[in-house]
């Protein structure tokens, strides 16, 4: 046991191991408290169906948080890009390519604006993105005039619908497969690509990174742009799942998404984080609501236990960090 605790892998993966243990304990509680629900498949299908919508954004937001920045505007970016996707798809009688291209481009453009405000104008990201949060949601309201858009006619039973959300062999929702694939890809970039490396260095120490020849502004801008892209992608997934656009789409995502990142163990101070942790964080945050209900507690407990989870997780990380220093 002592050997395992002192092993290199354990030392370098403390965060990941802690989060895994927290998730395991949570699922043991689920099993013990509601075996009739958790020994059957449907609950997992429900998880796989709903988690990817905010999970994809959480994975992407881990890059921005590792930079020591934050983006609060993504719920509205989901809104404006979903609206665009819905309008173009129904307006072109189901032309997926144009709708996808326009929605994701707009997402990246919104990310670019965030990035420019933070780097070139010098507004702290928390302030800049509160501004764009209101701006994009406001634009959604103005354009949609408060009414929704149905895409049932142009999206149902199409190949692109199948590609995004159809159940594979009637069991696995396609969006979950996408979520896992994207997580693996982003993990690879985060740890092994030059860009992931720069994200860590800039988040760790901006001045040193600059002296080592890293273009700090560009790294930040690209991070915001990719979050804009993935927000748009999450919006498109939601559209296919619901086959309907409504003007508040995305606005419930903010807290669950950021909670997943922080519960996952990524440091709010920047320089250190884990994509795997965020993935587990998504499993935890995404399962809480149904889990709590299945355990027989009333819905009023959901927020309370959510709060308990988040606070205890970040406390554990802070203690691990303090021990290190």
């Amino acid at each position, binding site marked *: 046991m002592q050997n395992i605790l002192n092993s290199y892998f354990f030392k370098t993966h403390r965060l990941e191991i802690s989060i895994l243990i927290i998730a395991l304990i949570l699922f043991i509680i689920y099993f013990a408290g509601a075996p009739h629900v958790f020994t059957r498949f449907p609950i997992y299908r429900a998880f796989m169906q709903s988690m990817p919508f905010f999970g994809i954004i959480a994975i992407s937001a881990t890059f921005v948080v590792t930079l020591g920045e934050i983006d609060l505007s993504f719920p509205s970016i989901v809104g404006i890009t979903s609206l665009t996707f819905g309008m173009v798809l129904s307006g072109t009688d189901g032309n997926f390519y144009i709708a996808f291209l326009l929605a994701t481009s707009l997402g990246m453009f919104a990310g670019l604006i965030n990035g420019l405000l933070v780097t070139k104008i010098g507004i702290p990201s928390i302030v800049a993105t509160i501004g764009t949060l209101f701006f994009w949601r406001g634009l959604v309201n103005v354009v949609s005039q408060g009414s929704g858009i149905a895409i049932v006619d142009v999206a149902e039973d199409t190949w692109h619908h199948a590609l995004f959300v159809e159940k594979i062999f009637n069991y696995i929702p396609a969006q979950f497969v996408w979520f896992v694939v994207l997580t693996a890809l982003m993990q690879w970039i985060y740890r*092994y*690509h*030059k860009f992931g490396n720069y994200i860590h*260095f800039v988040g*760790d*120490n901006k001045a040193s990174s600059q*002296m*080592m*020849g890293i273009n700090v502004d560009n790294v930040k801008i690209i991070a915001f742009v990719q979050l804009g892209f993935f927000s748009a992608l999450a919006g498109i997934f939601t559209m296919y799942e619901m086959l309907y656009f409504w003007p508040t789409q995305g606005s419930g995502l903010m807290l669950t998404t950021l909670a997943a990142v922080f519960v996952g163990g990524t440091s709010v101070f920047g320089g250190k984080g884990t994509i795997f942790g965020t993935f587990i964080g998504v499993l935890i945050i995404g399962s809480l609501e149904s889990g709590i209900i299945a355990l027989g507690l009333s819905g009023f407990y959901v927020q309370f236990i959510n709060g308990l989870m988040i606070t205890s997780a970040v406390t554990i990380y802070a203690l691990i960090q303090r021990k*290190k220093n």
Partner: protein
Amino acid sequence: MKKSLLRLEKITKNFGNVKVLKEVNFEINTGEVVALIGDNGAGKSTLIKVITGVHRPNSGKILFKDKEVMIKSVSQSRKMGIETVYQERALCDQQELYRNIFAGREITNIFGFINIKKQRKEAEKILRDYIGFTSKAITVDSPVYGLSGGEKQGVAFGRSLYFDSDLIILDEPTMGLSIQETEKVLNFIRGLKDQNKSAIFIDHNIVHVYGAADRFVILDRGEIVGQFRKEEISRDDLVKKMIELHESGKIEVEA
């Protein structure tokens, strides 16, 4: 006849209304060690940041190996063969040593993915051959925050030697080091001459400076107010000059 390696002509740098460098002329030859001395705020760090591409001068010319150049970025100055060991040591605390050593010039494939295996192997070579780390406690996977000041400096030196360079710039290389560690650093600087490399270094301690440099350039409020070759001035006179400068705020300019 020594060959000119780097020449700055009438370099001016302003930060807003503050003139940090006022028409500075500066030259360094191949195989020469030049010390930049002066009070805090004299413009020493700004001058070297102009040379390394962190700052762009507002006006003036830079000649490297007798060719006029514009140094627009750190990576460009590195490509030209200018390496810097910064005062702040330019290391990121939470990242592993092998990532720090190659930060900004990772060994990658064409898609930009880092060759971790190769980077770790090269970093190991640097730790062993250039720095002489033998302690088992420090490996290429150690994050920087566990290292002592001297060890961090060692990593920064090792990095500058590994990437074969003509000019090494050292910003307060002995700051915060023990006497033993300082001696190592000064030996390192003297050793550069044998490899026909040039060095510019900034230090507050005249004793350190005098022991390691061939020439002394005194900066005061953005201007060069004195230049001496080692044979022209004794250590005590150099100390006197600095005290005079400190008291009067000015010393006579040498022709």
